[in-house]
Structure formats: C-alpha cells, structure tokens
C-alpha cells in the first residue's frame, strides 16, 4: 500500500471518527488503527485561542490578585485587625474590572519599594513583624555608629606609652659659651691695713682701670685725679654707697690687709678676696663667685630622680621629635636652678623639658670633698616610636 492510499484510508477513518462512527467497519491495518486511535483523542483537542485566552486571564488574574493582596495589606494598616471583615481577598469581577485592577497593580509595582520588609506585614511568603525589623535596624545602626566612633576616638587618642625620652648630662659636648658680660674672675687688693676691708660697694665697672678703688685714700692730692673703677661689665651697676667690699661687714673704713692698691685682703687692684682688678673671688677682672664649671677638680652631679618629660600635643600630632639642650645650675643641695634653654626644639617641647628638669634631683657636684654648685648642660631627647 503506497502512502497515497494510506492517506486516503486514514482520511476516511478520520471522517468516521469526527462523525462519531469510529473506525468500525473499515478494513484497516495496524498502522491505520494506531493513527485513528490518536485521531480519536485529537477530536477533543482544545481550541488554541481558548488556551491562549485562559492563560492571559491567569496572568491578568495573578497580577490582579497581587494588587488585591497589597491593597488589602494597606487596608489592614488603616483599619486595624478585624476592622474590615467584609473585605474579599480575590474578586472574580468582569474583564474590565480585572484589566483596571491589572493596570493599578502595574502602577503599584512600578513604584520603588523602600525597606519592604519593614513596611509590609509579609514578605517572601513568611511572616515578618515590623517591631522586630525596626529593632534589628536600630541595633545594626547603633553597632555601626559605635564602630565608627570607636575608630575615630582611637585614632585621636593614641597611648603615650610609645613616647620614649632620654636625657644626658653632657660634660664636654655642649660647653658653656663665653659670656660677654659675665666672667668668672674677681679681684682684690688692699694697702696692708690692720683691718680687713670694710663694707661698701665697688666703684663703677669699666673696660679699663686707671685708678684702683680705695676706702681710705692714700694720696689726697694726686697730680692727675681720675675716677676709680674696677674691670668688669659696664652695664652692671652697684649701689652708690661708700666704697668697700660687698661681702664685708666691717664698718670701720679700711682698704684691707692685702696689697696692690685695691680693696680687699688679697692682692690686685680690684675689690674682694680675689687677685685681680675685678670684684669678688677669682682673678682677672669681672665679678667672681657663682657656680663651678665641670672639670679641674669638680665632679659632675649625678641625677637620682629624673622623671621623663611629657610630649606636647602639638609635637605628637606632628610626629615631631628631636633634642632640647638646657643650661642648668645644680646647687650644692642637688636642686636644679636657673634652668635655661640652650638649644631650642619648639612645638612646646622646650617648656616640657624645662618643667621636667625642674623636678629632677641630683647628687651634687663635689670639689675638695665638699658639695658645690655647678653649671651643666642637660640634653633631653624626644623620640616617637
């Protein structure tokens, strides 16, 4: 049997199926019988348009139902639980109403949702409570704020433990500069009187001396009268009283037991116990006395209490470090006095160094077995590690 005859026979059988007669009465082979069986099933094939329309209705209903759910949830918020018992969850309305609902839903879905879990009673099919969501949000925001504030606080308040400072008593590295107005010399003299030099004030300082000072004038009629002076800084002014030794307590006028023509018990043309044209102990002019310098039989003071200086905030922020050199007089009692800055560092570190060194205590310098005042230079190092 060729395909044309099979097609004709099959068509005849299909006609019978469609007419409700079935394939009975036809002398069909096995293949035709199988195909007719399929054809009999196809007799109930749904209309393609119906299927498409129903699918469109399903999609439309689905969107409409979504809109109804959202709207009903909004009503729940407004009415409260149980306040709207008559509300219908899903409405099988007319096609027009469905379309209207679908459009309304589309407009609702086009709106951006902000925190849908917080502002909706349900989301993604499981119940959510707004109070819990709000509490969770609050805790997360609080934790985040604590982290941020803690980080900022930690960055601004670094521990001072990382500041390390050291100090050094420099013996020769920072020698005291020579002073133009102050010397360590002194002077003395006398006219071999029976008495020590009497109390009084030295005459005016001058760069050179023409006439030595005297309490008891030996030559009342000099051929060339000149003012008596002592060698020393001209800007240092003594009280204008009777001439005499500053350290003497004798009131009886006397030039002293010394010799050379000045006032004092040593020799020279000055005033005091020294040996020069100056005033006070020492020799060579100027004002004698004051603290000792290190060396030449004078030992260095040794710090026994030396707390580290603080770091200034300005230097810490700027991460500034360096050395400050101070000029200090350590008294015979081991207490530092007359602290001065010899090498400045700035940024408040000089003041911090001075404040710290003022609190230091020393084992005093010794000379000939006796504690003496001594001037030293102290180097204070500021380091950030």
């Amino acid at each position, binding site marked *: 049997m060729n395909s*044309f005859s099979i097609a004709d026979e099959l068509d005849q059988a299909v006609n019978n199926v469609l007419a409700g007669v079935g394939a009975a009465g036809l002398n069909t082979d096995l293949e035709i019988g199988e195909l007719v069986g399929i054809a009999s099933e196809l007799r109930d094939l749904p209309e393609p348009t119906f299927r498409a329309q*129903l699918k469109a209705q*399903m*999609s439309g209903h*689905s969107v409409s139902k979504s809109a109804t759910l959202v709207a009903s949830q909004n009503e729940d918020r407004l009415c409260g639980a149980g306040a709207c018992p008559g509300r219908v969850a899903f409405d099988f309305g007319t096609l027009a109403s469905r379309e209207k609902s679908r459009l309304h839903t589309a407009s609702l879905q086009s709106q951006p949702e902000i925190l849908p879990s917080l502002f909706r009673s349900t989301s*993604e099919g499981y119940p959510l409570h707004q109070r819990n969501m709000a509490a969770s949000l609050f805790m997360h925001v609080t934790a985040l704020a604590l982290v941020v504030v803690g980080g900022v606080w930690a960055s601004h308040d670094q521990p001072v433990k990382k500041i390390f400072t050291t100090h050094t008593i420099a013996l020769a590295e920072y020698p005291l500069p020579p002073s133009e107005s102050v010397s360590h010399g002194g002077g003395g003299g006398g006219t071999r009187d029976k008495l020590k030099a009497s109390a009084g004030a030295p005459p005016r300082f001058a760069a050179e001396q023409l006439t030595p000072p005297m309490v008891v004038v030996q030559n009342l009629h000099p051929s060339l009268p000149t003012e008596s002076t002592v060698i020393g800084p001209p800007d240092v002014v003594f009280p204008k009283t009777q001439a005499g030794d500053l350290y003497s307590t004798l009131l009886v006028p006397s030039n002293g037991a010394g010799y050379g023509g000045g006032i004092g018990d040593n020799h020279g043309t000055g005033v005091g116990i020294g040996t020069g044209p100056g005033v006070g102990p020492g020799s060579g002019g100027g004002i004698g006395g004051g603290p000792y310098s290190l060396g030449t039989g004078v030992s260095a003071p040794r710090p026994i209490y030396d707390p580290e200086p603080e770091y200034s905030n300005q230097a810490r922020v700027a991460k500034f470090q360096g050395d400050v050199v101070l000029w200090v007089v350590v008294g015979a009692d081991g207490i530092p006095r007359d602290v001065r800055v010899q090498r400045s560092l700035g940024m408040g570190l000089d003041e911090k160094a001075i404040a710290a060194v003022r609190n230091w205590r020393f084992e005093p310098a010794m000379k000939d077995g006796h504690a003496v005042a001594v001037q030293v230079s102290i180097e204070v190092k500021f380091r950030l590690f």
Partner: protein
Amino acid sequence: MHLKVVENDTDERFLVEAAQRDPSCFAELYEQNFNRVYAFVVRRVATREEAQDLTAEVFHQALAGIGKFEWRGAPFVAWLLGIAAHVLAAHWQCNPKRQEILAEDLELAGNDGSIERRAMIFQLVESLPDDQRQVIIRRFVDQRSIKEIAQEFSRSEGAIKQLQLRALRNLRTRLRSHHEQL
C-alpha cells in the same frame, strides 16, 4: 523535542511556593497542568465548549485558593483534578442528564493513564511543524473537511491528506518516544 512537563517534585514544589508568594507565577503552573486538567474534564463532558468552560473555572478556583494549598507529597495536578471533580459535580447538579458519583473519578484522578496519554497528545500537537499543526487544528478542532482546508491553504487535497498522515505519524512517533523515556 521539549515537553512542558514537570521534571520532579522539587521543581513543582518550587513553582507552587513561588505562586503562593507571588500569584503572577501561577501562569507557569497553568501552562504545565492545563493539558492534564483539560483531558480530565473533556473525558467527562459531552462537548468541547463545555470542557473549556469547566477547565477555565477549575483554574480560576485554583488561582483563588493557591494560598491554601499545602504540600503533602501528592503532585500538584492531583489538587487541580480534585478541584475539577468538584467543579464537575457542581456542573452535573445543574445538569440532570448525568448524576454519577465522582468518587471513582477522584480515585482515578492521579492514576488514569488515558488522561496522561490524552494530555501528552494535546501537548505534542504544539510541537508539530507549523503546517502539520495547522492541518490538525483545522481538521479536528474546526472539524473542516480536507477540501476546505485545501482551499484555505491553496493546496491540493492530496497534499493536505499527506500532511494529515505525516502529522499523525509524527504524533505516534513522539508518543512512543515519550513512553520509552518513561
């Protein structure tokens, strides 16, 4: 050939849960179960129009009640066929011509092989080549004669008969292939 069937329970459950969360996902469930529901209904009514109306009612009710569906291990189509049985019962109450008890139908809902075969045939028609599918639709849905179809497509009656033959053979082959896969 791509058959729109649910591969396993997990996929179907996923689709059902998605439809419960978002009813707009119900269209996919409809697409996958339409042929079974329609095949179930059309076997129990007299006309195609009646079957289509009742099928539409089944899916509308299913969509309305999808939120109440609870997964108990049975396939989703069984729930749909249960709705279809109730819809048919309500339909028959209004139509005294047939007052049969639906208990047997409900029992057969999940195991009736004829429903599966018919649903598969309906689904396979959609996968036919366009000319063959058009001939099948004109012939069986519109119930036109070979001559009318030939005139509509401007072809000879012999060619239309050949298309009809090839379409039915195609359906038989694909149906066998599907059964072999099962």
